[in-house]
């Protein structure tokens, strides 16, 4: 998206300071923080560390299981040491996966195992990035994909992971049936007509009802999409956002704080020949933003002027390719994140307040803020239950302090009636969630029936559900 000038700013800042005082001086002078402290790789009992993608969650599980099939999983679940937690790629920022009991990976229970018409039967250990080419072999694709495709299908569905598109549901919206293995080893097939209550509870269930081993999921034709990325003033992006959500198959934009700019991304179906996406430029863009923060973070007007001069003339990018190759992006720069899903009429007001607050209170922030739109569905714990939602996601570089997300950002989202992304940072629990999810009690009743002893619950989930065992 930007030229080499971005990297020059990012690199040049460091080089100038390093020349005067070495790496330590650079870190102090630029605001770059050292690596966060690491927990021991092995605990006192010799148990190996597990950490999530961003590094903020960790545990030393007593047992790690990788069952080869459903039968082995069912047998293991009956005797496994609680808390039993299924884990995928560890992309959740909340403490859904950590356990000192049993960590279960479904990496060996993966792949497309059948088709019912255009609906694929997919094992939930399948990573999203691997699923694209599997479905493409049949000329099919998932209707949408999230921004990152490293997650397991089970993890993505369980946390209501989503992409963007006013007419496209979150991933679990395409699930038409599922198979659940309960903590007692019972296998339950569920869909809209068979065990419908289990189906509605399990589609988004945070891995708390047992282990979902496979889903039947609707697919769409594997069409080529035209991807466009372009920058414009933030106010213009806000003014045109609704029109663009209505116009494009997929549309999102990133508000870039301390620049006065926004980056728009649209995808639309096309029959044009493929024009590959080319090398990743988002990382260079981020480096430029970090460089601007480091160099001019002390003076917001200067920082904005420099950012405008550096970035605003960037040329738009275009690519044409199959959707599964374009809709997700490599994210080699780690971060922590809070995302809330807001009623659409509140989304842009909340966004503007978030940007104003960050620019007033937190000059250390440089990550763009992601703004998406998601169609409604009826899963009981879906944040998109009951109507379309607009999401706003605020990120913090993994080395930087992220407490501002709780102190400054979450109150804004809550004031605008937001629901938190289940896998991203938030503090809501119990009664607060019951107040914003009409089927909360119904979900807890199904959970109680399937796991009366709470063997699938770690301390975080007990708190989230407001349960005491």
């Amino acid at each position: 998206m930007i030229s080499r000038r971005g990297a020059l700013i990012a690199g040049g800042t460091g080089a100038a300071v390093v020349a005067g005082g070495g790496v330590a001086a650079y870190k102090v002078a630029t605001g770059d923080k050292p690596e966060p402290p690491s927990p021991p790789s092995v605990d006192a009992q010799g148990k190996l560390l597990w950490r999530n993608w961003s590094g903020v969650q960790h545990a030393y599980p007593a047992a790690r299981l990788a069952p080869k099939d459903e039968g082995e999983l069912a047998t293991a679940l009956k005797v496994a040491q609680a808390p039993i937690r299924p884990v995928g790629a560890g992309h959740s920022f909340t403490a859904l996966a950590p356990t000192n009991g049993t960590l279960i990976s479904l990496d060996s229970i993966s792949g497309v195992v059948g088709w019912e018409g255009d609906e694929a039967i997919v094992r939930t250990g399948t990573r999203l990035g691997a699923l694209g080419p599997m479905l493409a072999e049949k000329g099919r694709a998932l209707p949408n994909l999230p921004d990152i495709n490293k997650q397991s299908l089970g993890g993505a569905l369980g946390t209501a992971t989503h992409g963007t598109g006013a007419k496209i549901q979150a991933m679990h919206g395409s699930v038409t049936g599922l198979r659940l293995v309960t903590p007692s080893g019972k296998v339950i097939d569920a869909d809209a007509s068979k065990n419908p209550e289990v189906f509605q509870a399990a589609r988004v269930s945070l891995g708390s009802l047992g282990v979902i081993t496979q889903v039947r999921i609707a697919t769409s034709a594997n069409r080529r999409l035209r991807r466009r990325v372009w920058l414009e003033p933030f106010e213009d992006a806000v003014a045109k956002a609704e029109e663009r959500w209505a116009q494009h198959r997929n549309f999102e934009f990133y508000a870039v704080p301390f620049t006065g700019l926004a980056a728009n991304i649209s995808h639309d179906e096309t029959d044009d020949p493929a024009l590959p996406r080319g090398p990743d430029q988002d990382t260079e863009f981020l480096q430029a933003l970090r460089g601007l923060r480091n160099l001019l973070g002390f003076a917001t007007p200067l920082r904005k002027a420099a950012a405008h001069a550096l970035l605003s003339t960037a040329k738009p990018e275009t690519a044409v390719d199959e959707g599964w190759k374009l809709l997700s992006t490599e994210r080699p720069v780690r971060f922590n994140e809070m995302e809330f899903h807001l009623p659409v009429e509140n989304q842009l007001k909340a966004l503007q307040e978030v940007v104003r607050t960050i620019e007033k209170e937190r000059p250390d922030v440089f990550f763009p803020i992601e703004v998406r739109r998601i169609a409604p569905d009826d899963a009981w714990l879906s944040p998109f239950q009951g109507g379309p939602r607009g999401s706003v996601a605020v990120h913090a570089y993994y080395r930087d302090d992220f407490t501002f997300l709780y102190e400054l950002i979450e109150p804004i989202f809550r004031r605008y009636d937001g629901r938190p992304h289940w896998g991203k940072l938030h503090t809501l629990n119990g009664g607060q969630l019951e107040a914003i999810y009409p089927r909360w009690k119904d979900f807890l009743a199904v959970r109680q029936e399937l796991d009366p002893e709470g063997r699938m619950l770690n301390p975080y989930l007990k708190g989230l559900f407001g349960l005491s065992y």
Partner: protein
Amino acid sequence: MRRALVLTAAALLLAACGAKPAPPPTPEQALALRPADARLSGLYETSCHACHAIPGTGAPLVHDRAAWDVRWKQGEATLLDHAIQGYNAMPATGQCATCTPADFQALIQFMAGREDSAK
């Protein structure tokens, strides 16, 4: 005849001493490479492969000796620690929740093109 053999051996020796590292694999080769051991191959496919087999992700490409040599010099213990803890863009445990330290070591040796180190 003997002289010819000596010259040939000397030429081979010189070639070996001054050998340039093998070129990095093509994107197609990188996608197709797998550890010989079936279990390890399964672990690799669901974790490391997502980044280390695809050019442009920022991760050193599997069997790209030039990219791995600088890392290998840090020592296997350091690379193992980075794999378990995460390091820069590398997520902790390479997103392999059930890999043991021995698995990580074998996977690193495979990706670095140092399978012989395992012997």
